[in-house]
C-alpha cells in the first residue's frame, strides 16, 4: 500500500514536472529581465507605429495577432503573438525573447532599435484583454462624428500632399479630426512604398502634410499611383483614396527582356549564340547535303565504264 502511494506520488511529480517543461518550451527568461518595464505609453500613435514594425519584422512568421495564421514550421510553430496564452508574459519577458531569439526565431538585438521593440510590445499589449484599461489612457478625444472623409490636395510644384480629415458632429458641424494617423503609399512593382514620413498624424484642424520624395522614379510622364488612407480601420472604418499624381521623376522604364541576353526571348538571343548555332547547323548540314549530292553521281560513274 505504501509503495502504491509512493508510486502514484512519483508519477504525479513526473507528470507535473514534464508538464511544466512542455509549457515553457524550454525557454527560460532570467528574473531580472522579467521585471523590465515598457517605458512607452499605450497611445494610439505608439500602437500604430508598433503595428507597422510588427508587419515588417514579425508578421512573415507569426501572422496577424489573434488570427493564428502563422506559418506552420516544424517542430515548433511560431506562436500567435496576440493570443492570451502569450500575453500572460510580462513586457520584460517578451522584450528578452525578441532580443535573444531561439531556434528558428532570430535575434533582434541589433536588427531593430529598442524603441521599435517597445512599440511592437505596446502594439501586442493592445490585444491583451486584461490590460485594456491602460490602453485608453493617453488617447486624443475626438467628438463623435459621422460621414468621416478626407480631402486630398496635391501641390505638384513643391511636391507636397495635404490631407484633411473631417467628420460631421451631432450638431451638424464638420470638424477636423485630430491625432489620427494617415498613410501615404506609392505603388511600386511589388507592393506599396510608404512615403508618410516621420509624423503623419492629423493636427488640431485635421490636417496632415507630407513631403513627397524628390527622387522617386515615376513613369515616362512622372506619374505614380498613390494610395492615401487612414492607417487604422478601427477608428472610422475603411477610408482610402487612390489617385494618380505627377510627383515622380519621369523615367523611361527598362525591361530586362528588351536586351539581348541568355534569358531573353528567341528574338533577343545573344548574337554569338545565334551565330554559333546557325553556323554549326549550316556547316554540318551543308556537308551532309554535299554527300547526298555525291551519291547521285555514283550510278553515273558506272555508266562511264561502258
Amino acid at each position, binding site marked *: 500500500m505504501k509503495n502504491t502511494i509512493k508510486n502514484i506520488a512519483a508519477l504525479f511529480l513526473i507528470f507535473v514536472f514534464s508538464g511544466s517543461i512542455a509549457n515553457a518550451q524550454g525557454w527560460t527568461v532570467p528574473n531580472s529581465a522579467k521585471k523590465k518595464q515598457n517605458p512607452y505609453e499605450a497611445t494610439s500613435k505608439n500602437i500604430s507605429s508598433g503595428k507597422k514594425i510588427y508587419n515588417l519584422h514579425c508578421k512573415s512568421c507569426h501572422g496577424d495577432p489573434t488570427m493564428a495564421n502563422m506559418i506552420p514550421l516544424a517542430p515548433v510553430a511560431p506562436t500567435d503573438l496576440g493570443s492570451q496564452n502569450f500575453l500572460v508574459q510580462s513586457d520584460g519577458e517578451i522584450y528578452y525573447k525578441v532580443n535573444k531569439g531561439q531556434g528558428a526565431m532570430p535575434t533582434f538585438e541589433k536588427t531593430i532599435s529598442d524603441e521599435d521593440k517597445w512599440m511592437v510590445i505596446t502594439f501586442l499589449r493592445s490585444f491583451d484583454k486584461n490590460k485594456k484599461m491602460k490602453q485608453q489612457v493617453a488617447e486624443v478625444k475626438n467628438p463623435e462624428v459621422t460621414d468621416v472623409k478626407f480631402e486630398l490636395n496635391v501641390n505638384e510644384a513643391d511636391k507636397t500632399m495635404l490631407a484633411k480629415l473631417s467628420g460631421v458632429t451631432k450638431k451638424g458641424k464638420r470638424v477636423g479630426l485630430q491625432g489620427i494617423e494617415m498613410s501615404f503609399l506609392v505603388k511600386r512593382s511589388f507592393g506599396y512604398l510608404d512615403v508618410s514620413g516621420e509624423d503623419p498624424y492629423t493636427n488640431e484642424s485635421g490636417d496632415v502634410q507630407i513631403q513627397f520624395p524628390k527622387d522617386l522614379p515615376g513613369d515616362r510622364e512622372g506619374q505614380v499611383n498613390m494610395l492615401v488612407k487612414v492607417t487604422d480601420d478601427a477608428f472610422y472604418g475603411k477610408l482610402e483614396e487612390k489617385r494618380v499624381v505627377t510627383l515622380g521623376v519621369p523615367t523611361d522604364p527598362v525591361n530586362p527582356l528588351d536586351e539581348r541576353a541568355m534569358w531573353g526571348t528567341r528574338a533577343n*538571343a545573344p548574337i554569338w549564340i545565334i551565330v554559333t548555332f546557325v553556323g554549326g547547323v549550316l556547316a554540318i548540314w551543308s556537308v551532309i547535303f*554535299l554527300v547526298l549530292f555525291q551519291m547521285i553521281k555514283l550510278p553515273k560513274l558506272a555508266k562511264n565504264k561502258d
Partner: protein
Amino acid sequence: MNDLPKQKETTLSFEKIKKDILHPMQNHKGLELWIVFLITVISVCGWAYYIQLKEGLGVTGMRDYVSWGLYIANFVFFVAVSLVGMLISSILGLLRIDWITPISRIAEIIAVAFVAVAGLVIVLDMGRPDRVLNVMIHGRFQSPILWDVTVITTYLTVSALLLILPMIPDLAICKKELTKASPIMKKLYNILSLGYINTPEQHKHLHKMIRTLMVLIVPIGLAIHTVTSWLFAATLRNGWDTTIFGPYFVAGAFVAGSAALIIAMYFFRVNYRLQDYITDLQFDKMGKLLVAVCLVYLYFNLNEFLVPGYKMKTGDDVHLKELFYGNWAIMFWASQLLGNIIPIILLVNKKFRKPLPIMIISLFVLAGAWFKRYVIVIPTMLHPHLPIQNVPENFVHYYPSAIEISVTVLSFALVLLIITVLSKIFPVVPIVETAESKGIEVKIDA
C-alpha cells in the same frame, strides 16, 4: 596476339563469304517468331501509352519534384548507347584498325536504332506530343533543348548514311544473290545500291564520301552526348552543377555502347552462325577496349564524386549522402561496382574475354549503365535548392508507375525490333569489306 588460340583454318572464298553472310538473312526460323514476340510486346505496351495519352502524365509517377523520371533516364541511356557507332566505325575506322571490319555494321545498326528511339522517348515523355514541332518553331537559341533536338536529328541522319553508304557494294550483291527476296525488298536493294558495280572510280568516289562522313560524325557524336549532359549541367542543381559533365557523359556513353555492341556481337555470332567472321579476336579486342573506356569512366567518376564528397558543401551534402549511404546507396554502388569496377578487374584477365563470359559481363555493364543514368537523373530532382513546402507525401518520393515501366519496355522492344529488322534485310557483316581485308578478289556483276 601470339597467345591467342589459333583460329580454325578455313579457306574463305568470295562465294563462301557471300553464302555465309546472306544465308541466315533468309533462312532463319526463329527470327519471325522473335519479331512477332516484339510486336506483341509493343502492342501491349502501346496500350499503356494510349492510357497516358488519354489521361495525361498524371498516370506516371512524376510529380512537382521529380518531373524528369524514368523516361529521361532512359533517354540518356539510349543516347549513350548510340554513341558506339561513332566510336567503332568512325574513330577506330579512321585510325585504320582492321579488326573492326566485321563488327562495324552492327555498331552502326545499334547507333541508328538507339538514337532513333531516343528521340521518340522524348516524345513519349511529353504530355502533349502534338506540340513537339513547337520546339523547332518557337525554340530559343539559348536553350539546350533546341540544341539537343537539332544534334540528335543530325546524328540520326549521319548514322543512317554511315550505315547505308558502306553497305552499297553489299546491297549490289544482295540485289543479285537474294533471288527469293520479296519484290519490295528487291526494289529497295536496287534503289539503295545506286547502280554500284565496283568500278575503280565508283570505289574511290564511295570511299571518299564515307571518309567525309566519318570525320563529320566525330564532332556530331561528341556534341550529341555533351549537349545531352548540358540539359542537366546548364541547370543549377546539386549533382548536375559540374563542369566535367560533358566528358563524363561521353566516357559513360563509350562504356554503355561497347557493352551493347559486345552483346549484339555475341547474339549475331551464335544465331547467324558467323563464328568465322565475328571471331574470338573481335571479342578479345572489344574486351580490351571496354576495359580502356571503363577506366576512363572510372577516372571521371572519381572526379565527379570524390571531389564534391571531400568538400561536402551545403546542398551537395544531402544529395551525396543519399547516394553514398542513403536511399540510393544500393543502386549507386551496384552501378559503380557491378557496372564498372568488377568488370575492369575481370576483363583484364584473358579468360574472361572469351565470347560467352564477356557477353555476360557486358550485360552487367549495360544494366549498370542504365541504373547509373537513373541515379544521375532522379536523386537530384528530389533535392531542389528551394524546397517546395506543404506538398502531398507522394511528391517527395518517386516510384515509376506501371504505365511508365510499360512505356519504357515499349522503347526497348522498339529498339530490338529495329535492330532485328535491319539485320534481317541487310547483311550484318560487310561482305565486300571482309573479302577485301582478307585479300580476296571481289566481283560484282552489273
